[in-house]
């Protein structure tokens, strides 16, 4: 196997609760990401799925060192980026890029499309002079399916789907080896969503970057991912090749998540398992297995001993004391 493009080792992030002092009671710390380990090879798509507050977005930001981890490290092509100086990290950013969820909030309204797309190129000195810059921008716009003539317009003149294309062009401009996309299609209408998903798949096939796709929509993930990691309260509960995750999920949370997804079909693929209660707050993560408060299979051991993310099948690992394919009978 070739060297991984990216490797996360025991990665963790705790946000301090703040407060305290003389008059206020201190707020508890938020453990957003806790002991996450995985690696990705070249050209691979790993999807991170989970509900809000599970730490998937924080994980994406940690991998690009947009925020500093409180524990663990991130290796990009073998280099530990958590110890790089600011200048070294800036050079590293040529290899790692991000596509954001909100195509309205992530593009400055005061700049033209050409300025927005060319900014990374200029920062890294990849183009010389205006003419070369405009040629490269035109090429990038064509790659994302927009006519080059739009480069002098402002973002407000574009629809959500077109803006997401611009965001993708910007990320691609430096020819990165790793792209994190945080919910890139969840703000888009269904008919536009399909266009953007197809575009991202085509581009990945052509350019062979590793792609971390953060999403909550399990159907979109099944379509786009090679492997899937399911997160709950900052931890990876299950990770594996997508076919195994969808056909033989071993963690009860994965099964419940799959069974809860509404599907526009008459033959429901999964029997509905409705979980009781809400996701606990990340300020007070349950002891033992963090899922035990909602798990239909919870036993005494689950309340006290946190299960490790252990191998349950080739390439598939699950953090459950009672991991077994379809243990809840959802399939």
């Amino acid at each position: 196997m070739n060297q991984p493009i990216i490797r996360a080792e025991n990665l963790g992030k705790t946000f301090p609760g703040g407060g305290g002092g003389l008059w206020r009671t201190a707020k508890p710390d938020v453990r957003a990401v806790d002991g996450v380990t995985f690696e990705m090879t070249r050209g691979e798509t790993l999807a991170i799925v989970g509900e809000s507050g599970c730490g998937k977005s924080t994980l994406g930001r940690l991998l690009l060192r947009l925020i500093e981890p409180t524990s663990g490290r991130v290796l990009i092509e073998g280099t530990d980026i958590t110890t790089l100086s600011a200048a070294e990290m800036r050079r590293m950013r040529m290899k790692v890029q991000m596509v954001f969820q909100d195509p309205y909030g992530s593009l400055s309204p005061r700049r033209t499309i050409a300025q927005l797309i060319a900014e990374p190129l200029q920062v890294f000195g990849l183009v010389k002079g205006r003419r070369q810059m405009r040629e490269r921008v035109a090429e990038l716009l064509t790659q994302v399916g927009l006519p080059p003539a739009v480069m002098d317009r402002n973002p407000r003149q574009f629809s959500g789907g077109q803006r997401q294309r611009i965001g993708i062009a910007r990320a691609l401009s430096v020819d990165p080896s790793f792209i994190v996309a945080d919910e890139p299609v969840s703000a888009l209408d269904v008919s536009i969503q399909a266009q953007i998903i197809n575009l991202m798949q085509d581009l990945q096939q052509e350019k062979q970057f590793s792609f971390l796709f953060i999403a909550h929509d399990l159907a979109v993930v099944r379509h786009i991912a090679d492997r899937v990691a399911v997160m709950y309260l900052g931890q990876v509960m299950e990770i594996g090749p997508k076919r195994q995750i969808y056909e033989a999920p071993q963690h009860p949370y994965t099964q419940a998540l799959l069974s809860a997804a509404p599907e526009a079909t008459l033959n429901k693929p999964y029997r509905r398992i409705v979980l009781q209660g809400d996701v606990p707050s990340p300020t007070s993560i349950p002891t033992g297995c963090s899922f035990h408060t909602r798990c239909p299979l919870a036993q005494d051991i689950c309340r006290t001993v946190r299960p490790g993310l252990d191998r349950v099948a080739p390439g598939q690992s699950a953090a459950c004391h009672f991991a077994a394919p379809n243990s809840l009978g959802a399939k």
Partner: protein
Amino acid sequence: MSAPLLNVESLCVEFGPKSAPIRVINSVNLRVDAGEAVGIVGESGSGKSITSLSILRLVPEPPSRIASGRIEFEGRDLLAMPKSQLRHMRGRDIAMIFQEPMSSLNPVMTVEAQIGEAIMLHQRLGRAERRARVIELLRLVGIPDPESRLKAYPHQFSGGMRQRVMIAIAVACNPKLLIADEPTTALDVTIQAQVLDLMKDVRRKLNTAILLISHDLGVIAEVCERVLVMYAGHVVEDADIRSLFENPQHPYTRGLLRAVPSLTDEHPRLYQIPGSVPQAGSIRQGCPFYARCDLRQDICARAMPAMSTHGARHVAACWATQSMPEVRSA
């Protein structure tokens, strides 16, 4: 055929000045029978929310106005009704819940006061009876230990619990019709499943008819028997869910069904509908889907097709498929 509970006929809603109106809802027909669950599916700008708001005349006038059409509830004409009488019907006969429960709930009122208010508006009950009714409603919507949550404020509830409180307020007076506009869009998938189950449960227990507005056909299929597909202010297809899934007639519906990735099959590529949703009111002639349609003909650019019938309780507005032999889609 029995008289419908809600009957909307040829509803047109316009925005902007009368001299140059922008028509956002175009000749919409919608019928909901007592106890029935009907969905409206569409993308942003399709007019699904404006349609649902128009029923209770909640679209702000100005800038918008109901230009023409009829809206009848149990045979009474809601458009001709004085505002005072309509206010009497809101909450009692027809109740509504919205996408974002936090902005619909009053942050400085307790849950008991908010649910109690809804009861007080339409029913004469003493304090103790009212409290008992609030507890009963909280129990109905599945809030654990309701007695202890009476004095809680909305911020002390999670998103899913707030939507339960909204549903409790909505069903406080046993409405005959519950209009739910994207009620689960802001919720996580496991919480969405809980709220959809609750809506089905409420319907079964109270025999409330439901009009569910969503961009997600999967959500509608969970709750409803019948669905209207809206596109650019028009209803383009109206069918039983089963019939719509097995035999979609409008090219837009077909595209929508194929463009959604599936939990079960893997296709190398998703079908994509070319182009983007037209801006409201930008299409003045012909079929609104013309520019994106792969079955378009010359006539489609000139005239909006009428609804044609495709089996029992299935109509679609398309020139191309109205005379075609039935195509079984996968």
